[in-house]
């Protein structure tokens, strides 16, 4: 494994993991709002959450650049007051991956939430549990398979994310150059075919390992829930 390969592989893992961690609480809150809450503008929220699925990734990357770039309103404030910069940084790559993964995660988690038997939650209420406790002790464990699926989907989407990342944070080795971006760079260079093929191989191995791990976790969670004997 060459240094460039190791760097891109590790960076992909780090970006995808951080993106999932960042998006998971947001996805859970959004799934809850869409599945359980009643409020004005719910339809609008649903559309906004799903935008990254329907828009070209380049557009999302551009929107992020406009918002979080040094000239963007939020980006300037974050940079000037907190010293946080997104463009050209690892942080920005994570943000781009998280935004792109969010709709898939919301979808999976929302389905799991809607499948939780409200009767069990009602039973827990009568046994003395407050709403918050019912959520933590009944709802959350019962939707664990869905949370897991959401996380796996988000992780996979983050590993493959390209368009929004390259538009928003460019292609900086060690900062934003994940496996897909490294493959792209290799293909741009004359005689880079072999390097690209090796990176492709690493991508496939990584994806297979992630999927295998996810299935193993899923079986365990389901067995724990008594959903399979």
């Amino acid at each position: 494994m060459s240094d460039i390969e190791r760097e891109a592989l590790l960076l992909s893992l780090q970006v995808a993991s951080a993106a999932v961690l960042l998006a998971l609480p947001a996805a859970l809150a959004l799934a809850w709002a869409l599945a359980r809450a009643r409020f004005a503008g719910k339809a609008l929220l649903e559309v906004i959450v799903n935008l990254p699925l329907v828009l070209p990734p380049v557009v999302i990357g551009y929107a992020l650049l406009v918002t979080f770039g040094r000239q963007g309103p939020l980006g300037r404030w974050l940079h000037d007051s907190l010293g946080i910069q997104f463009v050209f940084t690892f942080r920005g790559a994570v943000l781009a991956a998280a935004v792109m993964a969010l709709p898939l995660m919301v979808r999976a988690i929302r389905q799991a939430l809607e499948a939780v038997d409200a009767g069990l939650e009602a039973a827990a209420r009568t046994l003395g549990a407050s709403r918050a406790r019912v959520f933590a002790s009944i709802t959350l464990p019962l939707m664990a398979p869905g949370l897991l699926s959401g996380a796996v989907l988000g992780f996979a989407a983050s590993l493959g994310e390209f368009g929004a990342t390259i538009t928003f944070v460019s292609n900086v080795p060690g900062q934003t150059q994940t496996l897909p971006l490294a493959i792209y760079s290799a293909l741009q260079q004359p005689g880079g075919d072999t390097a690209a093929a090796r990176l492709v191989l690493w991508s496939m191995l990584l994806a297979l390992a992630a999927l295998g791990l996810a299935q193993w976790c899923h079986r365990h969670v389901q067995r724990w829930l008594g959903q399979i004997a």
Partner: protein
Amino acid sequence: MIDLDVQIERPQLSVQAQLTLPAHGVTAVIGRSGAGKSTLLHAVAGLLKPSRGRITLAGRTLFDADQRIDVPPHRRGFGVVFQEGRLFPHLSVRGNLLYGARLSGHTSGPDFDDVVQLLGIEALLARRPHTLSGGERQRVAIGRALLCRPRALLMDEPLASLDPARRHELLGYLAELPRHFQLPLLYVTHQIDEVLRLADQVVVMSEGRTVAAGPALSVLSDLSLQPLVGRFEAGSVLAGRVVEHLSDWQLTQVEVAGQRLTVPQLDAPNGASVRLRIRARDVALQREVLPTSAMNQLAGTVTRVLDRDGPYSAVELALDAQAAGATLWALVTRRSVHTLGLAPGQPVVASFKAVAVEGRAAAQFTSAEEA
């Protein structure tokens, strides 16, 4: 103890209920399906919000639409058992049993070992709900409700999803609980044997309204209510006491209102209180005691004559003017009413065969209903 006067609006049903439940004993809510029984129970538990009215438990206001009081379900202090058990699939039986116990603020209440032993679920503690049978699941659900240290129990057709053998077995456990733990129980059902076995008071609901309430024997024996109850075939419930067993004949003699009845052998010791159910259409009326193969001839006085559908009349007899559970109904033809000249105040003799007495429900009844 529970006092309520509420209106609940549901998509298919508007429930208007007014009730006062005693501080102890079992109150059965009966009625046809769709009469609003479950809706009422859910409102008491706090899982449904009435549109108006009030609910109090032992003087504490749980709901009051005018004062905008709505105590959330987890602070109401009811142990609830649902038809489907609703055990938490990700917790073991022990985890399920302790779920409410951990949250309960009360320090006194049923003891874990006591409940587990009484329900016979010691061997199940480490198991997961999906490995249990239907009957086992309901026993765990009952234990879980008891262990949250409730002030009262609410049960919504807890035996409805079980096969007859399991129902019968669980009925035995249920009969013990309210007295063992000194807890009032509100019990929704439409099974006559559950009512006969368990209930001290009966509330009848029809089309969303509470139409009658009172001691079990008098409500169950009130034939005018029976069209509202459905399923139960018109009949009477008599309270009696086992006098002696005629083992050679597999018969039991029971004293009812100072008179002696012979019924198929009951599984109850001498002196035990029992309830006997006799269908109105099995009872014949005559002016005086006659020699007949019908073993039971009871003297009484006509108190009511009601015209029923078709050629029939329902005649209500008082076997003993003072005692509860001494009302007998006979379904006879209007012609017989005319021929015998039956009218309120008229002394008559009612006769029925021993085989007409429902022994099963009566045999299982162990509680003392000595009104």
